[in-house]
């Protein structure tokens, strides 16, 4: 089997990271929108779901929720640019790491094909 379970998990991780990046982009774009509340995904729960149900659909829909504990400004907006920029950098770094792992997995398959020739 070319795509191992581990590869699927890494792919799911990268998918979640990209979704989170998209939410960060939306939060940053709406940093000055009156009444807008910052949103995020429950990363731990989504990853736990991927681990617990290895046979199920590898890319189920992702649920988002409002971020708690953020200070609400006078116009009803609660986006913290500092938090969003930090998340942006954090997610980017994790994505690089995951891409490296994926690359390693793909290389392994390539090597196996090459060696078997």
């Amino acid at each position, binding site marked *: 089997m070319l795509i191992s379970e581990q590869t699927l998990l890494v792919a799911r991780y*990268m998918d979640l990271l*990209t*979704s989170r*990046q*998209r*939410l*960060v*982009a*939306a939060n*940053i*774009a*709406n*940093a*000055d*929108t*009156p009444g*807008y509340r910052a*949103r995020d995904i429950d990363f731990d729960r989504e990853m736990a779901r991927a681990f617990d149900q290895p046979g199920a659909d590898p*890319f189920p*829909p*992702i649920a*988002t929720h409002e971020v708690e504990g953020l200070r609400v400004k006078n116009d009803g907006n609660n986006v913290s*640019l500092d938090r*969003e*920029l930090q998340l*942006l*950098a954090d*997610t*980017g770094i994790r*994505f*690089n790491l995951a*891409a*490296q792992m*994926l*690359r390693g997995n*793909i*290389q392994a398959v*390539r090597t196996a094909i090459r060696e078997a020739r």
Partner: protein
Amino acid sequence: MSLFSILEVSSSGLSAQRTRVEVLAQNIANAETTCAADGGPYRRRRVVFEAERRPVTPFGTGLARVVRPVDRSFDRETQGVRIAELRLDDAAPEMRYQPHHPDADVEGYVAYPSFNLVEDMVDLTAAVRSYQANLAVIASVKEIVARTIDSGRS
């Protein structure tokens, strides 16, 4: 959900912030204008932002659908931003006694815009910062795409 939709969201942020900067620059430039296009003193403009669900381009949707089914609920919840309206300030003008001014009224008073210029200058700094934050997101997405392509390269 596709990566290109992130770029759409961020570019909506860039446009909105750039319009905000233009409006603020116009306010600052006209802080002392006594005779605007509509006759009276210049009236300050303010932008009002609004979250907006941007339709993903057909290319993005088509591409995503080929790879796997599109997650519609997530699309609905992540939103870009747009300028909802350009609000005119209706504060009473500031009257200064300058009888020799060409725009003076019969009693010698000239109507000046009454907003505080410093407020707009501070807002301008915040707008530039928001613009840069949106640029950072675009740079990050480009990096993500580059890394994804790299992972397939031998």
